[in-house]
């Protein structure tokens, strides 16, 4: 696993062309504040410039970062390199929408230093894409992947979703297959979650769309995991697959291993030395706080030992890396529970670690509480 101890840097680009009805990430659809946001980001970077060691990952997420103009993206990267230090092989990921991948875009991105693209394809079925109110078609997604590959990117991630309204399991396999045509180095396959506060969330409350049932969700999950592993992918996190060890998302792995990270931009979260903080979740108040010489922090928490352990357990059980058995030292009955979970085929134990099996992944949310508390 790309588990370095070097911190990761996340940039939240809170702008989108349109809001997708299932997404609960913070973004706005007006671009009038882009300049202010960039300027504020620079101010925020200055605040943290000496607090973190050299980063080895940058993740530009959003929102829709590829909607930024070339000079804006270049200015952003410039800012980061001016105030922070990076190791030479830093993984620089940008989240991209297929409809933003013009002929030139991939080359431009490469020019400013981006070496990994995470493409929000979601589906290769036009009907499904329409129901998700995505701005691209399946053909556009394919064209985008071709262009990215042609420009020389050797690390491409594709985001897909299952559990979409009207989606069949056969249709889902078709979507995965079309993604595999491009041999992506990384795949994220998410079961669609109907989040509170989103249009889909409301439709779910009103009964206009039905979330996937437990049994169907299980079946989709098993099909996904089985199919992709058959195709040689490593199922290394609940929703994430890598073609080789080295293609695991270095940046995202930091979240799952309590490696420090700094998040810049509205609503971004940071973690350093047992302290987590998160920024104001509106562009205006974020900019205002920095304009007034303050920090744009909305909240902060210092993890107790118990909280740290709980997080280590639940984050660990979400990854194939599992948990270090030392975490369970002095936990009452942990040996009994471990052996029962092994017997039930939910975990494997070796090398001093307990790792979830595929069946274990399915119930990973419940595993930590068997040990903690």
């Amino acid at each position, binding site marked *: 696993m790309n588990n370095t101890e070097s911190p990761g840097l*996340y940039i939240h680009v809170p702008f989108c062309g349109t809001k997708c009805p299932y997404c609960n*990430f913070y973004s706005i659809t007006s671009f009038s504040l882009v300049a202010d946001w960039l300027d504020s980001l620079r101010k925020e970077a200055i605040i943290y410039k000496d607090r973190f060691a050299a980063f080895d990952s940058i993740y530009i997420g959003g929102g829709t970062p590829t909607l930024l103009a070339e000079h804006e993206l270049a200015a952003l990267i410039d800012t980061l390199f001016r105030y922070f230090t990076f190791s030479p092989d830093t993984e620089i990921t940008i989240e991209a929408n297929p409809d933003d991948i013009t002929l030139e875009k991939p080359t431009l991105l490469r020019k400013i230093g981006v070496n990994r693209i995470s493409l929000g394809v979601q589906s290769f079925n036009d009907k499904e894409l329409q129901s998700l109110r995505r701005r691209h078609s399946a053909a556009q997604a394919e064209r985008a992947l071709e262009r990215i590959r042609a420009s020389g990117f050797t690390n491409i991630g594709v985001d897909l979703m299952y559990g979409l309204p009207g989606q069949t399991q056969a249709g889902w396999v078709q979507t995965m297959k079309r993604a595999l045509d491009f041999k992506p180095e990384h795949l994220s396959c*998410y*079961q*669609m*979650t109907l989040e509170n506060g989103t249009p889909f969330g409301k439709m779910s409350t009103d009964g206009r769309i039905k979330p996937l049932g*437990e*049994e169907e*969700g*299980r079946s989709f*999950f098993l099909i996904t995991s089985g199919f992709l592993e058959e195709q040689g992918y490593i199922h290394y996190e*609940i*929703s994430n697959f890598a073609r080789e060890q080295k293609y695991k998302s270095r940046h*995202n792995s930091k*979240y*799952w291993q309590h490696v420090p*990270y700094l*998040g810049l931009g509205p*609503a*971004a*979260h*940071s*973690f350093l030395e047992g302290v*987590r903080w*998160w920024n104001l979740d509106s562009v205006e108040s974020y900019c205002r706080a920095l304009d007034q010489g303050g920090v744009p922090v909305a909240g902060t*928490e210092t993890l107790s030992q118990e*909280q740290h352990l*709980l*997080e280590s357990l*639940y*984050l660990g059980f*979400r990854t194939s890396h599992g948990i270090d058995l030392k975490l369970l030292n002095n936990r*009452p*009955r942990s040996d*009994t*529970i471990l052996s*029962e*979970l092994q017997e*039930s085929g*939910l975990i494997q134990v070796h090398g001093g670690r307990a790792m979830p099996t595929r069946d*274990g*992944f*399915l*119930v*990973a*949310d*419940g*595993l*930590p*509480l*068997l040990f*903690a*508390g």
Partner: protein
Amino acid sequence: MPQIRNFSIIAHIDHGKSTLADRLIQHAGLVTERQFRDQILDTMDLERERGITIKSQTVTLPYTGKKGKEYDLNLIDTPGHVDFSYEVSRALASCEGVLLIVDASQGVQAQTVANLYMAMEHDLTIIPVINKIDLPSADVDQVKEQIENELGLDPEPSILCSAKEGIGIENVLEAIVEQIPAPTGNPHDPLTALIFDANYDPFRGTIISCRVFDGTVRPGDIIRFMSNNATYKVEEVGVFRLSREPRKELSAASVGYIISGIKTVSDTRIGDTITLNSNPAAAPLPGFKEAKPMVFSSIYPVSSDDYTSLVEALEKYKLNDSALIYQKDSSAALGQGFRCGFLGLLHLEIFQQRLEREYGQAIIMTAPSVRYQFRLQDGKTITIDNPQYYPDDAGIESSFEPFIKASIFIPERYMGEVMKLCIARRGVNPRFNYPTQGRVEVTFDMPLAEVIFDFYDRMKTITQGYGSFDYDLIEYREGDLVKLDILVNSEKVDALSLIVHRDRARDWGVRVCDRLKEAIPRHQFKIAIQGAIGGKIISRSTIPAFRKDVTAKCYGGDITRKRKLLEKQKKGKKRMKMVGSVMIPQGAFVAVLKSDNE
């Protein structure tokens, strides 16, 4: 000196007893309309929720009659459940009369009749009060007819009122002073005071509620409890307003309190007679009975770290509940705990809920048991109230279980259903008595064990609330008893074991397995629940595993939120007990005993 009247209010549940009490208190000027809140007398949350009075409270109401005379009206509140019928009887023994409330729209109901009988046993003056006359469905004429035909009372002097609207309250008060006889008694005779309640005050110790029949008691007197000859020096006497009001003395015929440095309520016994050490009465007042635990259950802290805190909570709780008994106990599944004895199942449930709410204890209670006797091959006889100590089967020559005489009052139309229930619960020797037209008193000999679980609830359900039930222990009878063990994922949970009659063992096994299936949440793995007698499995159920229980995304912004969710679940887990890797909610241990219809 104001004249005294001592009275209680009795009613079927929800007929407005507490509201009327509150109105009387308000009328007496003890609270203003602004302070008036519902059910002043029922102070505990639990009572409000269940709509029943558990601990009774007493209050002295000043009243000036229409003829200008001054009165002290002592309202003695009574608890309202069969578990506490002894307490009710002691409260009634302290009165000369009762207000018998009948709901104007619901008419005479089961408890109306049961309460009436109890009042009659004590030779009390009974004033029928027809309440809720403001309701559109009120039918006063028909209720009067019922009072005449079903209760055998003269309906003419019935008072019409609406406690809720404050209608007719004055008439109620006039009836109390006009119809209920003034108490008699001689303040110069040797002291006899009946203890009808006792409460614990953290600053003053036990507050005894009593009715003085003869004599006078003053601060400084040495009093003696006639049941055990314990003596105490009186610190303070007085009457109850909404709080305590000290007086120079309490003398014959009055109702009030005595504080005498008694540390725990258990040192006082409801129904005991207080006299003066220097000039004792020749004989105690009649009717005293020791509180007799009938139902036993073990309690354990959910987390064994909380044992010490449970010890302290029990000590405090006991201060206020003289009927509770307890001693140390331990279980392989649940660790260190206590075996407790209760008057009945409601007493047990109230204990559990109060211990949790008022004393902050997360506890697990085991299945209630009665006290069994086993005659062993070696000639010894042992008594067991805890299935854990069930003797080796091979060593048992014969087993015995307590039988009660169960008396059930019902309208005749429910007789078939009630008979069926009693027979299903191994009731024998049915007898019938027709006290009034249309009503039957059915009497059965029944094993106490069959009654303690949900008999009362079932009986209430099938009689739509019209049935009333009371019981007396009669004797031990031989029965074919076995121990039913419960296994969760092959691990025996000693705290779920039950001693049952062989004829009922399968029913119980199925029931417990089904209930546990409902009460234990799904886990990450399959859970097998089995009932077994000896090594033989007689029932089983399976809790399927979670099929999928994992959120799709977890990145930087999700981690804190997700941890908080887990922390919340973890708190919930504190109320669970681990058996192997199965988390059993504390409620599961009692859920196995709940009625089918709940």
